[in-house]
């Protein structure tokens, strides 16, 4: 059987990208935030729209809030850096005591390859437990744009759809 070189190349790239996402999850869960920040491109953009309860024929128009509307997050790298700095103050009460967090990343798939950039979609499950019985599950879909650089992959864009309309967690003080 002839070897489909194109396919092998794609599988390897997918594997490489997935590996990067898993490593990124580890950095977050091990609270190595400075190393994690290094993985975000300088033009990083992070957006998490609100999800509304709408009629099936309103889905396109109304289900997710848009770029010019209120979202859970809509920010660049400088704001993420401030969040990391806030965690390090020791008086950021939402995360004192610190939470136990696990990022599960799955269903990783390359949607677009235009090197040095790729678009990759995945599902996430972020589990947080803190103090005693405070437990949150944040689940949904994610679409990342990654860029290959001399120093490795960088996250350029992250768009996340969280499957909740009323947030059942009391805050979003962890990186989803």
């Amino acid at each position, binding site marked *: 059987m002839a070897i489909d070189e194109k396919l092998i190349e794609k599988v390897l790239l997918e594997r490489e990208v997935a590996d990067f996402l898993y490593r990124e999850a580890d950095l977050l869960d091990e609270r190595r935030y400075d190393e994690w920040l290094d993985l975000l491109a300088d033009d990083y953009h992070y957006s*998490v*729209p*609100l999800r*509304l*309860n*709408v*009629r099936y024929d*309103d889905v396109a128009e*109304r289900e997710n*809030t*848009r770029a*010019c*509307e*209120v*979202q*859970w*997050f*809509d*920010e660049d790298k*400088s*704001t993420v850096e*401030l*969040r990391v*700095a*806030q965690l390090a*103050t020791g*008086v*950021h*009460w*939402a995360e*004192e005591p610190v939470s136990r967090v696990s990022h599960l990343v799955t269903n990783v798939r390359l949607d677009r390859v235009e090197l040095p950039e790729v678009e990759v979609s995945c599902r996430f499950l972020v589990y947080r437990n803190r*103090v005693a019985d405070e437990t949150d599950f944040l689940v949904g879909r994610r679409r990342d744009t990654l860029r290959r650089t001399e120093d490795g992959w960088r996250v350029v864009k992250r768009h996340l759809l969280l499957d909740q*309309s*009323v*947030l*059942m*967690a*009391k*805050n*979003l*003080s962890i990186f989803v």
Partner: protein
Amino acid sequence: MSTNTPEKQGLGPVSDLVDLGTGEISREIFVNEEIFRREMEHLFPRAWLFVGHASQVPNPGDYFSSQMGSDPVLLTRDDKGEIHVLLNSCRHRGMRVCRYDEGNTMQFTCPYHAWSYSIDGALVETPGDLHGVPQMKAAYDNKLRKKQWGLVHCPNIHVYKGLVFANWDPEAPSFEEYVGDFHWWLDNLADAFDGTEGATEVFRGVLKWRIKSNWKFVSENFLGDTYHGASTHASVEAVGIGPGGKGKRRHGERQDQGGFSKGRMKTSFRLGHGASDNLAYEVPYPEFAEPEMEEYFAAAWQKRAEKLRAEDRPLGGRGPATLFPNMSFAAGFPRSILVAHPISPTETEVWRWFIVDKDAPEFVREWLRHYYMRYGGPAGMTEQDDMENWDYATQASLGVVARRYPYNYQQGLGQELPSDLDRAVHSHHAIAGEVNARAFYRRWAEFTDNLSWPELEELAKTDDRATAVAPDALPEIGRREEDN
């Protein structure tokens, strides 16, 4: 009071649990099921509640699903452009006729047995009336009196510069009477930054989230608890997220004004409302790093100052503030409305809207939207830390032993200062001072104990709190120690 717990003596009037003389308030009012039931029964269906903003329903048929105390409601606009608030529960078997957060329809059809309710004045007498009934002949022999079985229509609605308020009680006083002189804070919320009346709208998208806290912690926090900022928000102050650039304080006060709190006093109304500032406390708009922002807000401030001075109106009064019982807001940076919807004594659903000038240029809108999101709501770097406190304060007050010990509301007890405003007093200090909370809980007890409207009116006819402080003592008051 520590022995007068409901377990031991049976639950009497809740006013027994609010001791204004000593400044002690029982923890029961934050955790007790029976007290929560009384709040739902006697307070929320009689209070003027914020249900949404007119700009959320700009066109005929637009609706927004909201909540008033224990009841889901629909904020709708009929074919003539009139706003209505309807109980979102079918009159046949109670099905929630609309489970969408927003949309556009002239007819709400119940999924259960398909009774349909119209808001089209051409089809029904009163929008919300029952219009279609399947098998009208077979089921009801055509005798069902449709006029009597429409969606329950909230009898009192008041649209104040775009802010929509509703009250279930037909006997309730008018919105103006209920609000009193506190309206100046609502004006600053609803008027544009340049003072143009009511020229604001909300960004689409209401943040909604659940917290394991009693709803009153939320109201009390915005009502005048400036005391919590230094500790609760130490982390966000340390990193800075404010207008002056991302290393600057979270509100971005102009430092050339000689400090944050000079001349600041809180304002407390006998009607239960409260604000963290006073009308004479002028804080110019912040300094912005971006020239487009600086330009817009410098011009807006100047225009507003001219307009208000011509009307002989002071320029302060931007909150944070709470309209009794559960609508909180700030009219500055950020400019936002929050409603604490009670779910149980220990659970609350918080909704947050963000306000913007209708005519703000794109750059200003976008700048503010980003600032609002990094400031407020569950992802906001400021608000995150509030929830931690409200939740664990509630949880740690549930214990049998804990419940025996009241909370302390003694800051500035007996040091209330007179005010020019109708039935209001000021705090003795800018940051400390719990006069607002004491007044809030007094009014809360009067409503929750189900006093009649004449009784409520009589009690709030005068304000018995102002002490005989010489007015010339005022300018020194409200100076924070650090400012000296």
